């Protein structure tokens, strides 16, 4: 199989006996080792485990058993996912002193139960507190489309691994945009499902109120395929819904009749390529309607404060005992977070419900909203400032301005990759749907990929 093979193509080929899972996995492992010096995508590559698992899948496929809907599909996971036998570093130096995980995270178990094969753990911003993908201990992940540019974060390595064609699918996490930002910068499809839809059990936490987990991939179809097998209640995650599974893959082609989509103005309008990308997608979908989302500035600010406060509480002991072992930028954010007045955080949680009600009212007459995923294409690695509305501002806190308000209220979002004419780097557009309607966002994303408007080719240097 070529680096650009989709998860669906791989699974069909393995199930039909046209290729072996072992050959697919050997190719993925070879690419992972071969490209890692350039990309810094992986912190661990699990060769033996992957080969053993591939042999089990091949045994099932050749013995007349069912190797599963994801038979032989290699995948990678951000290194905050527990992997049995490995220490879950969550991008940190401090956690490397912890004992190895005894079991795999729930989502890894569910993907492997469906036939997929884990090949490694991926680089990330320390403790998921960053949007740039520049890890102070393991080095920056590099954008496969241009190695001088950042992948975005914090699911940095998972994005690099998919954009470079090492694996078709990876697992990330998204508290404020950490799936959607790297999906935008690396030209991928990324799904942040509804808060509580996918189990976070066995992942190192960051902000309990806002943490989500989910996949990155090179097609909406692949996202739907893996999303379907990852759904389901898990009592080990207290935030999980007890809703029944609502599979999407079989419904992907069925567009909703009379689907109502709008762009968002004001705070979410964006400028430059971000705005052009939304207009490009809107034109393809014949969308002219525009809506205003009230209190977006305050919503983003509240997400910022809840993140600081809950993240700081999580890390208080480590801040007391090993402040010198943190990434200095992360440490200073967390130290500040320990000191926030309670009223700032309490009001932020009240605002969360208020903002949710604002947005849900909009969905009374609407099925989806389009906004940019990021204000810009991937900045250079090490870049500290950028122009926003004609003013030079600090880069890092601004990368997530369009993603934070929606993870804040837990809405399902698919980021789709757009390549504008004349641009050498991609940029994402978020398709935001009402709670529990991942199907709407994925179906619109699939319509866009079918029309050639959204596409996620493997980066040329790695194809």
């Amino acid at each position, binding site marked *: 199989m070529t680096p650009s093979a989709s998860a669906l193509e791989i699974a069909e080929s393995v199930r039909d006996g046209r290729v072996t899972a072992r050959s697919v996995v050997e190719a993925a492992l070879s690419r992972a080792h071969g490209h890692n010096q350039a990309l810094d995508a992986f912190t661990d590559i699990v060769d033996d485990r992957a080969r053993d698992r591939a042999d089990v899948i091949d045994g099932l496929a050749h013995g007349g058993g069912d190797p599963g809907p994801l038979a032989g599909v290699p995948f990678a996971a951000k290194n905050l996912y527990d992997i049995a036998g490995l220490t879950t570093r969550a991008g940190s130096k401090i956690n490397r002193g912890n004992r190895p995980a005894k079991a795999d995270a729930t989502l890894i178990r569910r993907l492997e139960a469906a036939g997929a094969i884990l090949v490694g753990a991926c680089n990330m911003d320390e403790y998921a507190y960053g949007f740039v993908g520049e890890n102070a201990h393991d080095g920056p992940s590099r954008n496969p489309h241009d190695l001088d540019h950042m992948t975005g974060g914090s699911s940095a390595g998972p994005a690099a691994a998919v954009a470079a064609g090492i694996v078709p699918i990876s697992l990330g996490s998204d508290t404020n945009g950490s799936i959607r930002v790297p999906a935008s910068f690396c030209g991928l499809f990324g799904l942040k499902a509804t808060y509580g839809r996918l189990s976070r059990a066995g992942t190192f936490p960051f902000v309990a*109120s806002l943490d989500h987990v989910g996949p990155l991939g090179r097609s909406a179809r692949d996202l739907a395929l893996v999303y379907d097998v990852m759904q389901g209640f898990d009592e080990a995650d207290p935030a999980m819904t007890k809703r029944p599974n609502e599979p999407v893959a079989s419904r992907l082609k069925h567009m909703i009749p009379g689907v109502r989509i709008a762009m968002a103005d004001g705070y979410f309008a964006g400028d430059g390529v971000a705005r052009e990308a939304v207009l490009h997608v809107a034109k393809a979908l014949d969308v002219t309607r525009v809506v205003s989302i009230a*209190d977006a*500035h*305050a919503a983003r*600010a*509240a997400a*910022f*404060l809840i993140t*600081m406060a809950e993240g700081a509480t999580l890390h*208080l002991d480590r*801040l*007391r005992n090993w*402040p010198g072992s943190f990434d*200095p*930028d992360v*440490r*200073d*954010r967390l*130290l*500040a*977070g*320990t*000191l*926030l*007045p309670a*009223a*700032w955080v*309490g*009001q*932020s*949680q*009240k*605002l*969360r*419900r*208020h903002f*949710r009600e604002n947005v849900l009212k909009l969905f009374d007459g609407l099925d989806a909203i389009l906004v940019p995923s990021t204000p810009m294409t991937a900045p250079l690695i090490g870049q500290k400032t950028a122009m926003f509305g004609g003013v030079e501002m600090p880069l890092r*806190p601004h990368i997530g301005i369009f993603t934070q308000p929606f993870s804040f*209220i837990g809405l399902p979002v698919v980021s789709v990759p757009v390549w504008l004419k004349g641009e050498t780097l991609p940029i994402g557009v978020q398709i935001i749907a009402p709670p529990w309607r991942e199907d709407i966002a994925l179906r619109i994303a699939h319509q866009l990929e079918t029309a050639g408007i959204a596409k996620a080719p493997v980066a040329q240097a790695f194809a």
Partner: protein
Amino acid sequence: MSYKPFDADALIEATAPLLQLQIAQDYRPGVKQNLKTAAKMAALVLQVKLPDDTEPAPVYRP
């Protein structure tokens, strides 16, 4: 009612000892900068008038 400008040093000195946190001198500029950003965010959050009966988002279900 008029407010004094946000004083990050005062917050650090009053609160860090309560948490038994040592904030080294060379960490202070970064911590102060983050607190100033947080104060701007808090101003945005606090200016939204919410009714008393707005339930905070996380609802505990026993």
